[in-house]
């Protein structure tokens, strides 16, 4: 082609350019993007009154008077409620995952980097936190700091990080014993450079995969806590609260259970697909790179 032609035409948008090459990852990302857009959309456009109850139309099935997913025992629209639950579920799980991934990565790398007593102390600390049963800790934490968005987020984030720390410790040690790290050291490359140039890129796939899976785990745990009455405040449209409400109406209004359950399942599946997809791609890439 001539130069004039290629400079004249604007770059056309192609959907295939967004594709990652892994079907799992593509599907997972599509579902997750829809959930994210819904989260932003409801925050921007959903009026607070959409969550109000309308007692005459209580426990109606999907499709009744424009209630796409039906209504609950107080006549609240289930579609709006499940949308209103997005910040509770995705928001809490996402923030908790960010917190636990950061703490886990930092502590794991500290343990991997130092060979002296610092490693021993950090590893002991990790083991101690792992040894506590999660639900008991969560109970205590909620009893102390109370219910609400931030208490659950912090409880989840501050309790679940040891898994990440363990894995990052093992991975980090693996990277640090590579000869190219020794080479960098002997060339006079600084500690921080080694950390950011060699170690972090080396463990990035692990962080991504673990992050996606733990995001899903956090989502389920948040619902579980709410279901047990330890999570979101009673009136909040959290998916766990919705499930909890639905128990008494399982026979008469099964949609009350199916709607939040479907939301949880689709979010968890999308995150698992993303995790699997990232793992698959990084395995393929590692094979191509090491060969």
């Amino acid at each position, binding site marked *: 082609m001539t130069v004039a032609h290629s400079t004249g035409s604007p770059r056309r948008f192609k959907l295939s350019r967004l594709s990652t090459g892994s079907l799992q990852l593509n599907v997972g990302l599509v579902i997750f993007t829809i959930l994210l857009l819904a989260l932003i959309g409801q925050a921007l456009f959903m009026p607070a009154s959409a969550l109000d109850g309308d007692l005459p139309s209580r426990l109606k099935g999907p499709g009744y008077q424009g209630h796409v997913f039906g209504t609950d025992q107080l006549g609240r629209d289930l579609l709006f409620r499940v949308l209103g639950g997005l910040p509770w579920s995705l928001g809490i799980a996402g923030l908790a995952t960010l917190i636990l991934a950061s703490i886990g990565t930092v502590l794991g790398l500290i343990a991997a980097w130092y060979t002296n007593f610092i490693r021993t102390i950090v590893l002991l600390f990790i083991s101690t936190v792992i040894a506590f049963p999660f639900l008991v800790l969560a109970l205590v934490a909620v009893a102390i700091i109370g219910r609400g968005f931030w208490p659950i987020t912090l409880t989840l984030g501050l309790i679940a990080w040891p898994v990440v720390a363990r894995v990052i410790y093992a991975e980090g040690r693996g990277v640090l014993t590579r000869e*190219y790290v020794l080479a960098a050291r002997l060339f*006079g490359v600084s500690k921080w450079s080694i950390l950011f140039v060699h170690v972090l890129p080396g463990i990035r796939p692990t962080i991504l995969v673990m992050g996606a899976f733990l995001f899903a785990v956090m989502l389920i745990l948040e619902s579980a806590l709410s279901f047990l009455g330890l999570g979101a405040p009673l009136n909040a449209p959290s998916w766990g609260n919705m499930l909890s409400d639905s128990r008494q109406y399982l026979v008469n209004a099964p949609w009350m259970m199916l709607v939040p359950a479907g939301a949880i399942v689709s979010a968890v599946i999308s995150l698992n697909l993303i995790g699997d997809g990232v793992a698959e791609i990084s395995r393929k890439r590692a094979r191509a790179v090491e060969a």
Partner: protein
Amino acid sequence: MADVSKTPNAGAEARTLTKSGNLLEATDLKVTFRAPGGRKLHAVDTISIGVKPRETVGLVGESGSGKSTVALTLMRAHEPESGQIIFDGLDITHLSERELLPIRRKLQVVFQDPYSSLDPRMTVRRIVAEPLKAHRYGNRSVINDRVDELLEQVGLPPDAAQRLPAQFSGGQRQRIAIARSLALEPMALIADEPVSALDVSIQAQIVNLLRGLQDRLNIAFLVIAHDLALVHQICDRIVVMYLGEAVEEGSADDVVGRPQHPYTVALLSATPVPVVGGDAERILLTGDPPSPIHRPTGCRFHPRCPIVQERCKTDKPPLVEFAPGRKVSCFYAGQMDPPRDLWAHEKEPLPESPED
């Protein structure tokens, strides 16, 4: 600060030498590691070694003889238990990592395995630029120009810079590693088995590359290897190691042509020779080298020595300088005949073959 550009003129930089004229000198270097059970593993036991400017010294021995430990200790990757390391007139034995930084610029290393010494996720340009960036060689365009120049020096195509190490063969990867080591125009280069991970057909090219670069860049070389033929080809002097100790030292031609220590003789006879009928009279050492945790008494070599005597089992022979620059540690030095006289020929350049 970052804009200071350097003139690529290694020869102009002044070198400070020790009294014996060495640029890099280790005296009575001793390295021990802690083995399970609190016992000591004597990896290197009082080795002294010196490298003069422009000189190539070979450190030879079989696996486990501690030769790589010597290399890494000289680079201060291991802490020596005792002894002294002097480089460019400076005692670097106990310098902190911060104080070592200017030394690391002048003393560089090439590793054995170019598959593990290059980060598989970095492009060749970033790999070669890494030491340059660490020492603030200059701004981005200065560094880029230097990388291109280096790649050309080691015989890689200009488009190599954008590619990943995985897209290169072993020999080309070692060229990348060499380019990286030369980036800062070091005064001395320690090469730890630079060709033993490569195909035999590629080894000659890398050896020739190293020799050519030394002539051009005025570098002192310390080559660690187990292959006496290779070391004879490229080295001026040879130190033979056995179980952490130096057993023989001398000029390359002399050590290979008139070996004194029975271990050197055995090493020589183990080297395959490309001559019909040349494989007669091979001295086979029995057994593995003994453990550096439980070392034999007396001469460390006595359990495997073909000419062992009673005395060797109890007394340890000292490393004696029997001629200028020629040392051996054996009570019966020179009493074992080299198996053949195939090493008498003069050094000649290795045949140049096209890149893989």
